[in-house]
């Protein structure tokens, strides 16, 4: 969890808002540092986290998580973290016996229909346990990342329906949060990705967009972060809800500064 990013977003693990969908999007750079931030943020907030990790392996997230002060192996054993490792379980679809539909069942189908089995997996993972006292504060769904589903053959509307159902269950019914990462390829030909990105943008309450610098790679400034707040519960008179910062990623933290104010330049 990056403390500077918490300050920019005016939040901390003890008093985060609930029922919100946060969209992480990256263009011409790698925005996965935001995924690691939110994973460690919600684990420290004592939330029950369901992580649909389609992009990297469990050990990758574990190594980075340890630098940020969370241990994913322990969290998984305690039952706080439910981890769907896409890279490993994609193979299980073919070699496992078919009792109930596998979350990644769409890989077997010639015509990838809908993501209902994946939604059922998420709902099962995050539903409150009856009969026991509430160990966790609220449920959180983390997805890294949604563009992988498009490249696996699922249609953009099917992915949007999956997000819709997750939002209805996680955000509205269970009063939890969702954090989704979508890549912005910037490619004008990729209409499906544009529909997906815009569709999720319209549903989200907070958009964090990490962009590479327009002038290219720089050693001291790794990129620019645009923060856009949307859908406040009460309409505010002033609609100035967007901020832009530049950042540099270090080994265990990320430092943020106003545009042009990098310490290397001053």
């Amino acid at each position, binding site marked *: 969890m990056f403390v500077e990013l918490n300050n920019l977003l005016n939040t901390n693990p003890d008093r985060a808002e609930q029922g919100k969908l946060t969209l992480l999007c990256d263009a011409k750079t790698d925005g996965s540092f935001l995924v690691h931030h939110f994973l460690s943020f919600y684990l420290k907030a004592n939330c029950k986290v369901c992580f649909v990790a389609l992009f990297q392996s469990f050990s990758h997230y574990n190594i980075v998580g340890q630098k940020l002060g969370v241990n994913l192996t322990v969290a998984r054993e305690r039952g706080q973290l439910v981890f769907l490792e896409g890279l490993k379980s994609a193979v299980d679809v073919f070699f496992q016996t078919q009792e109930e539909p596998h979350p990644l069942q769409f890989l077997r189908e010639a015509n990838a229909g809908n993501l209902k089995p994946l939604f059922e997996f998420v709902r099962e993972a995050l539903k409150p346990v009856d009969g026991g006292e509430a160990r966790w504060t609220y449920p959180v769904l983390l997805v890294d990342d949604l563009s992988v589903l498009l490249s696996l053959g699922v249609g953009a509307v099917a992915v949007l329906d999956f997000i819709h159902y997750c939002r*209805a269950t996680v955000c509205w019914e269970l009063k939890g949060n969702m954090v989704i990462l979508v890549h912005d390829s910037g490619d004008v030909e990729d209409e499906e990705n544009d*529909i997906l990105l*815009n569709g999720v*943008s319209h549903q989200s309450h907070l958009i964090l967009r990490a962009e590479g610098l327009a002038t290219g790679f720089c050693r001291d400034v790794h990129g620019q972060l645009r923060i856009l707040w*949307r859908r406040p519960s009460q309409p*505010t008179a002033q609609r100035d809800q967007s901020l832009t910062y530049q950042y540099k990623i270090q080994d265990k933290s990320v430092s943020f500064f106003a545009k042009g104010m990098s310490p290397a330049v001053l």
Partner: protein
Amino acid sequence: MLDSLLSLGGLVLLRDSVEWEGRSLLKALVKKSALCGEQVHILGCEVSEEEFREGFDSDINNRLVYHDFFRDPLNWSKTEEALPGGPLGALRAICKRTDPGPVTIALDSLSWLLLHLPCTTLCQALHAVSHQDSCPGDSSPVGKVSVLGLLHEELHGPGPVGALSSLAQTEVTLGGRKGQASAHILCRRPRQRPTDQTQWFSILPDFSLDLQEGPSVESQPCSDPHIPPVDPTTHLTFNLHLSKKEREARDSLILPFQFSSEKQQALLRPRPGQATSHIFYEPDAYDDLDQEDPDDDLDI
């Protein structure tokens, strides 16, 4: 003109974008209809009923009929709660009502319907709904039907958006500048020229519309009145200023190529002490000496 959008009836298209969202304007127009005593139906596909009703007080909420397509629109939970016929079935059922009186239908959102239904089906249904009051041969008088559709522009190609736009009597495109929202309203009245107008507005916390003048002219991004203009001649190592005597001497200086009357007299009058100069010329063999003066005909 923004507050009289619904008086014309027909389809009103609210086109919004990620940066300038349109749901608050939709809710403000719904509140206006409810306060006018109309019956208001909401086809809610994108937000939950609680979220849509939030911010309205109870007498408005009592007038709103919410058709919930948010919780389980595709019937994945396989329960009997799903409304039969889907959103279009609900739309047709609203129009088959027997009581006369104006009705407002809010579609939240038209984008959801366009992504899940064929464009032609949706356009036919909207045409049937919004032109119902001009349908001849119907014995029972039907009141005016207004349909408010929220459309997220970036999600659709130009074809479907163009088709919906041609069906609409009024199109409102949301935009803005520097934190101030604006609505560009294009209105097509029958047998009249389409009119367009831009209206700056804001939505108050109780979802009433506040019409405003645009952002003030002084607040242009180039000039900032809070920063005083910087004088570049301060803090220099050399002197750029002139004293009074230096300024007078500079002003009285005659430039070398400026032809004034004094200079003319000085040139014409030979200077004393200077002998006139002679030119000694030895003509060559090739020279053509013409005694006639070629400048004789000039009148100086």
